[in-house]
């Protein structure tokens, strides 16, 4: 099995002096797992978009409801009456756009295990530290970088 090398550089973030006085600087992790787009985790967020092209909410809705590719409805209820059989494992995503920021949502989708190592939620854009991935999925992620941005654009419309 191909194991991709993960380079994690733990950096000491130099926050502004005023900020640092109030709380410890957030953990910063650089994730670089080619061929994925490299990204930087700051605390529980990924502040920068993964792609230059802005997210497309219409396409994003298709991404998150793709029944063959880890749809959120497996576990979450969503305000989508046209989707049958919503799961009840996880909190409803109704109104999620008002409860979460875009950088928080980006990490949640890219690699939810960075937020909660024990979560059952899938990591949609992650290649490292996986065991015995099925042959046909080796080296693949659920989503492409643009899918992440499109999904975010859609989910933020759920106010």
């Amino acid at each position, binding site marked *: 099995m191909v194991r991709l090398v993960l380079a994690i550089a733990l950096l000491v973030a130099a926050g502004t002096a005023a900020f640092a006085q109030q709380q410890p600087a957030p953990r910063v992790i650089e994730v670089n797992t080619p061929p994925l787009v490299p990204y930087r985790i700051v605390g529980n967020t990924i502040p920068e978009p993964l792609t230059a092209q802005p997210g497309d909410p219409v396409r994003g809705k298709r991404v998150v409801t793709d029944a063959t590719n880890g749809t959120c409805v497996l576990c979450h209820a969503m305000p989508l009456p046209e989707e049958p059989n*919503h799961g009840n494992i996880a909190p409803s995503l109704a109104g999620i756009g008002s409860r979460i920021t875009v950088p928080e949502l980006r990490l949640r989708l890219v690699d939810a*295990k960075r937020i909660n190592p024990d979560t059952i939620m899938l990591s949609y854009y992650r290649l490292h530290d996986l065991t*015995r991935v099925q042959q046909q999925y080796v080296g693949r992620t659920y989503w492409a970088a643009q899918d992440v941005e499109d999904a975010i654009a859609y989910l933020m419309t759920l106010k």
Partner: protein
Amino acid sequence: MTRTLLLTFSFLCSALLPPLAQAQQWPLPAARFEVEGRKSGYFYLGRQTQILEDDDFQNPGMFAVEAGSALWRKVEGEAGLSCASCHNNAAVTMKGVSARYPRFDAEKGGIINLELMINREREQRMKAPPLKYESEQLIGLTAYIGYQSRGLPRAIEVAGPAAPFYEKGKEFFFQRRGLTDISCAMCHDDLAGANLRGDVISQGQINGFPFYRLQWRSMGSTHRMFEWCNTSMRAEPYPYGSEEYLNLELYVAWRGRGLPVETPAVRK
């Protein structure tokens, strides 16, 4: 006088009968599908599917049991024997057997399950070729032997020489794997009763195998179910009959100790 004799006779009979009657009492009362918090998959089914399992005339798994019954009596191999040549009436000789499988096997130095035991009997005693794993014949014979223990509690030995294999099976159950990066335990220990899309997640017990799965429109073995769950996790499955799945089967069987044998169970 006659009356006293009759009474004594019927008392004697009833004293002798309970074990047999227990195995044949079917359907079981609903309470029997749960033992100290361990719950059979039956517990999580819709009533319609439970009725299918309860009623032998509707249970589609009974076709496999009947096919197995025919094979039991079929002479095959160079020794010119059938299973029945030596074991006679399976209702007597095979009663309670499947409840003890899988088990440690000294000859093999590892875990053997009922499917592999049947094939060993064919090869060693009948001088007949082994049956293909998951073939109708092997499923049939396994279902037929399992059926003889229906209603009896699963009694799985994991102490002594079985212990290291049990540990490996347990490790498998808790190991996160696949693109989903989740473990068996995350669904079947932590989320039993919850809805994963259209499915109600059960405890993942194997007391009803081989079972009839409506979604497959066919029978399936424990190892086929393991394969299904593994690929749902987008994890590379292991071959049927592999050491990995045998160890896992031992752990999962022990996890459901005390649950009644339900073969042939019906599941969604």
